[in-house]
């Protein structure tokens, strides 16, 4: 159960930061291809991104309580952001299905 919550929190954080990245034209093009000039609704993407981050943070606080949960949340979100950045550097196409779903 604890591992499941942690995995879900990481997934939510990763997804949240991926949506943030896709709201930027440069990353959107790298993921969706040159034809897609810009994300159609950057603001909506960012709002969805925020909810992913909030969801991740809530999950770890539920898992570990306010004290440990806040520290874990801060460090876990940094790890999620780093994972998104490395995905965009080396395997941007991994996020293509996400971009297609959002088009």
């Amino acid at each position, binding site marked *: 159960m604890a591992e499941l919550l942690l995995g879900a929190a990481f997934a939510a954080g990763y997804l949240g930061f991926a949506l943030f*990245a896709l709201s930027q034209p440069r*990353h959107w093009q790298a993921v969706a291809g040159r034809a897609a000039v810009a994300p159609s609704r950057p603001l909506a993407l960012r709002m969805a991104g925020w909810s992913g981050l909030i969801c991740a943070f809530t999950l770890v606080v539920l898992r*570990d309580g306010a004290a*440990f949960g806040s520290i874990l949340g801060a*460090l876990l979100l*940094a790890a999620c*952001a*780093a994972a*998104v*950045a490395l995905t965009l550097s080396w395997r941007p196409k991994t996020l293509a299905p996400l971009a297609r779903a959002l088009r």
Partner: protein
Amino acid sequence: MRAGFRQSMTRLHTWAGVVIGALLFLIFWMGSLSVFDREVDRWMMPMTRLAPASASGLASLDTTVRPVAEQLAGGASPWTILLPTARVPTLELRYPDGAGEIVRRHVDPASGRLLAAAGSAGGNGFFFPFHYKLHLKAFDLGYWLVGLAGMTMLVLLVSGVIIHRRIFSDFFTFRPARAMPRATLDLHNLSGVLALPFHFVITLSGLIILFAIYFPVAWQTAYAPAGPDARQAFNREAFGTWRRPPAGVPGPLASLDAMLAAAQAQWQGGRPYMVRVWHPGDAASWVEVRRSFADDITMNLDTVYFDGVTGAVLHRHQARPVMRVQRFIAGLHFVQFEHWTLRWLYFLAGLAGCLMIGTGLLFWLEARRARHLRQGVAGVRLVEGLTVGGTAGLIVATLAFLVANRLLPLDLAARPAIEMNVFFAAWGVTFVHAGWRAAHAWREQAWAMAVLATAAVALNGLTTGDHLLRTLAAGNWAVAGVDGVLLLGALVAGGVARHLRRRGAEAPAVGGARAAAGGRG
């Protein structure tokens, strides 16, 4: 923002970083390794690789460690006994020898058997003190250098945020295919921005832990009325230190187990982690029992003092509000709680700090290399030598330390000191090598990391029989974890070395090498 301000911040960031960068890298590297110091201890001290202590209650001290302490330490004061934890399966006994040096011995908590002397300072005895006092004893010089570096780090973080032009639009940006200076700066910004909250909190909390050294005026002023006893009064009220003079008359020591049970009852089930016997065998001896903080962030100061002869409670201490805040901040820094996910994240965030510092230095070099060559200035050569030795060389030395640990015979006299000398000798060699091989030094030291890390894993398997397959199967995570990180580090270091060669080898990405050798050492 006015251009002049940003420019002056850039200058500050650049020069503070170049001057103090190598020292900061050292502190971050040793701090990252200290996150797993107990696990490194198990790796470096094979005789202490016992099965984890049973969770059912406390081991009896009276029948296990006490006879050992009486035999080894006798009346030497104090005996310090650390109880087994989830990370340390042994009872650890520390006492001063005739010369005042602290001796550390391990005892099997199940049988009371004294384990062979470790012959090694290990991670807790070498990496950890390196992190906060650099093994420089004279005039507290190590503490002060670390404090200076910590203050500079705060300046660097703030000025770095000010001069970063596009924090949000570059939030996820790392372009490894671009030219060296650009890719290096990307990595510097990425590791700096993403781990910024961690870096800020860890640096500030590190300074706050040692407030009594860095900001002595605070307590000296507050306790000035106590006159020459000011320090004692401060330690008593802040940390609960309690003392009395020995009687000089012999007196028997009461049951330690009974004192542990009494302390546990006082704390409503809170477990003790340390027992310290002051002036054992004296009629006025006393016993200090401290409460564990393994399941809390705040490192509580709950302590009970017992009369050594009667076992009666002499004094109790709990942190007051201000100290509770200090102990919470200290707990954030020390990671003494049992939380494996957080432990790994601290380790990774610490390595991200190393990456940030290493790439920062490298960017300075790359931005000036061509110009200095043209102008005939020696700056790049000098900084490059110091940077290679201070970053890649430090990792090479750490790995050499581990290899020496597996090669030196156990019965060697002064073996812990020899291990440390191997570390410093290897480190010295890397600086000489960096000065001699110049731009090739990066790649060659990356190869050295790959070879040494692989050798350390192989030697662990050969000399102890605990190879990775066996430790994984047996669930010996401490040893398996160190081996695993070493192998991973070897792979990354080898990959970086090959990448540097393809790239033309001049001026490599230390960043990769660093993350690479990100072994816990």
